[in-house]
């Protein structure tokens, strides 16, 4: 069972306290109605599936409840880093 560092609690906690919330840094367009079908499709459905470094959102759902971002290696399943929502991509 992986240990995940919550950047808000600043503690490593077991993964059962967390929930994955998909790819990180996919911002909702500020004005969705101005989006073309292709742009909206890309926002809604098209996701990365990298081998290696992957930017993901996690939620400390059974802890502080905060969403945060993480870089996880999809091959080794190791977390490289976690950081607060709103901070720049690492």
């Amino acid at each position: 069972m992986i240990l995940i560092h919550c950047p808000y609690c600043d503690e490593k906690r077991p993964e059962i306290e967390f929930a994955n919330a998909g790819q990180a840094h996919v911002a909702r367009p500020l004005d969705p109605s101005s989006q073309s079908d292709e742009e909206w499709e890309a926002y809604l459905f098209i996701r990365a599936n990298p081998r290696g470094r992957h930017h993901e959102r996690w939620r400390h759902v059974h802890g502080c409840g905060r969403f945060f971002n993480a870089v996880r290696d999809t091959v080794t399943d190791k977390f490289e880093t976690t950081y607060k929502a709103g901070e720049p991509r690492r």
Partner: protein
Amino acid sequence: MTGYRLDNGGRIDRNRPVEFRFDGHSYQGFAGDTLASALLANGISLFGRSFKYHRPRGIMAAGSEEPNALISVDRGAGRFTPNLRATSVEIHAGLNAFSQNRWPSLKRDFGAINDRLGMFFPAGFYNKTFMWPRSFWEKLYEPAIRKMAGLGDAPTQEDPDIYASTYAHCDLLIVGAGPAGIDAALEAMGSNKRIILIDEQDELGGGALADPALWPWLERSRKALIDAPNVTILTRTTAFGYYHDNFIGAVQRLTDHSPDNSDSPREKLWRVRAGEVVLAQGAIERPLVFDGNDTPGVMLSSAAKVFGLRYGVAVGKSVALMAAHDSGWHDVFALAKAGVGIKAIIDVRTELSSALLDEASRLGINVHLNHSVTGVNGRHRVTSIQICNNDDYVGTRIDCDTLLMAGGWTPSVHLWSHSKGSLAWRDDIGAYVPDQPNENARCVGACSGGWDFGSGVIVDVLPTPKDQSRIKAFVDFQNDVTAKDIKLAVREGFRSIEHIKRYTTNGMATDQGKTSNLNGLQIASTALAKPVTDIGLTSFRPPYTPQTFGALAGHAKGALFQPTRTTNIDGWAAENGAVFELVAQWRRARYFPKMGEDMHAAVNRECVAVRSSVGIFDASTLGKIEVVGPDAAEFLNRMYTNPWKALEPGRCRYGLLLKEDGFITDDGVSARLAPDRFHLTTTTGGAARVLNMMEDYLQTEWPDLDVWLTSTTEQYAVIALQGPNARKLLEPLVEGIDLSADAFPHMAIREGTICGIPTRLFRVSFTGELGFEINVPTAYGRALWERLMAEGAKFDITPYGTEAMHVLRAEKGFIIVGQDTDGTITPFDAGLDWAVGKKKPDFVGKRSMARPDLVAPGRKQLVGLLTDDPNVVLQEGAQIVADPRQPIPMTMIGHVTSSYWSETLGRSIAFALVAGGHEMMGGTLYIPMPGKTHEAKVTGMVFYDAEGARLHV
């Protein structure tokens, strides 16, 4: 020597004889014996029948790697455990053990005919033979094969035992308490580290337990470790898996070894998080591959030493050794000194150290260098062996009752590999050893490839003059895989060890190839003429040895498998005969049958009561979220399809929630209590999902909004009073709220007290009748319910359950998200476009509602269905076709989502999702059901009081 018990030595307690049973016969051993050592001492050599060929099998090893001697232990009703290794079962008074996979008895086994037919059972036999006809597989082939080929019987009764589990944290976890593990513990003991030392055996020592010279050291070390306050010792504990971030799963066996404390937990699951892990799992001796190497009486040389020196049991009276490694020589020297008769040493090698040869000569043991065993005589026990010179195949026969094998050593890298530590091949020992760690872990002792057993050579199959295709030289003893099978797999084109393993099943038995993987690799390597490192290595996976489901499940079974959520009113419902159903994790009253009523009659009565007088319903399970903050209205405006900013405090609104993809995900009536405060309700099953979704948008998309979300589902008990007499019943009980129609209209909320209890009183209706939902602090739920029941007696108040609630809402055309929608339904598909704020620039899902697919014709749309025969209630889930005369398979254009008998209407009603349904109003559709195809007319979804006259009173 009495029988096979040596006169002296061993760690058994000769003053404590123990009576036990095996296959119905009574035997005697000593405290400290395993089932294997005690039966060997009684001269038993036959322990079981093999998996496929039903060949007689004895003991091969002395530890948990034993592949042959699988037995069942019966501890009484529900306490039957199959497939235990006789070498790991401690004997105790009353132990009742049985051999497996034999009929009618171990000695006369009908299935042994398979052995004679062996040439017809090559690798892949089942795949090749039982392909056709397909229909025979389930009824004929599989049951027959299962009966013939198998391990122990599965237990048939519920397990009455208790299983405990715990979490533990330590700085240093040591797996394996042989000399290397004990040294690691002693070394760290003086620090302030919290140390856990785990070993699968009943006492510390590992290999040292079979080395009397080490016993004084062992006793000193054991005392020191027990006295150390920072060391926790777990014996009879198997570390079965090594998971991420130094998380180790281990099962401790607490009571199986002692007869009279079955009320205590049987086993305990340890989940250990360790700072550092030291693996000291030792090494497993490798069998040699030759014709007849599975005959009872053929065993590992190291096992014979354990039986002799730890348990005081001679494995035979006339013992021969077949060696490819020095360790076997040392073993038989020690056995000879302990009084075991050693007949001969055969070694494949031509040259050995003079020290070994001199010692053999001094002990009077005949030595045959450059020789191999080519045959074993005897069926239930070795009677003699055939040996040959490796060069000219000139042979001779040696009479003996036991043959030991010393084929070299395989480091136990199982847990290391679970942790994804890398392995390196070492040619000199012909084995993989730990290389680079992936966790904070290291291997010490024999499992790192370091040992002082001397040297040896690796031989894939012993040289033989016999026709290789006619001999049975076993590689995987438990799965009956021979060297011939692996060679056949290579001939048939398998190149990777992963494929060879699956085709031959080598290494796939319950022992996971502890004694067979490396021999299999060597044989495949030779057959492919490629180095071992080029054909791969199969993965090691948990568990290291089989563990019980009971230990893994722990307390999470029966009522504790998952929590059952109950409302404050649940107890009243139970006492008043409610029939319950589970909705998500909630237990809800489905209906309240009176004497002699079935569900149909009860639901009809409950529905009529609501329509004619007043019904009472426990709606406490509704999800509730308190939305507070200056931007609360703006937030809800962005989340829901409906406009919220203009909603006045004191009023309610039906809210429809989409996901960003434009599909309905939840709905519920919500109230504005104040400009900055809303009381949201969600579906019973959707509460957590909706809160999570709202938190997601609030935290990550709109962090600038000043809004706070709090789950209040469990803070309120909710009682729905529905029916024309609801107001009359409520009026005298409520203070501070004017209940008149003008002052308190439909879809409004007021705060006041009821029977002195603070309440948020909603005037809402999921039934189409005049209705109220009374929210009170949870603890008052049942008291208020009972008061309403008492006061409502004059109106013949009727409690109703979820089933009547479903019927009543369906009569009014109200959908249930998740039953009438399936995650692909838009508001337009559901006929709920009226709930979409057309003027709003944005809300979650709005842009998607204009996606090409979501506006395309032919989408499935929700419609009403009225069967031509009003007495026919369609099956929910029944498929719908446009033309019943089309050939099969018909084109299915939709399905029935809700269907009920409506007592109020005197007929059946239904909803259905139908492709292009909105365009079919008045048309006829066909619903094939068992026995008959029914016709139904497509209608709107409101079947009762379409103008809402009953609501606005």
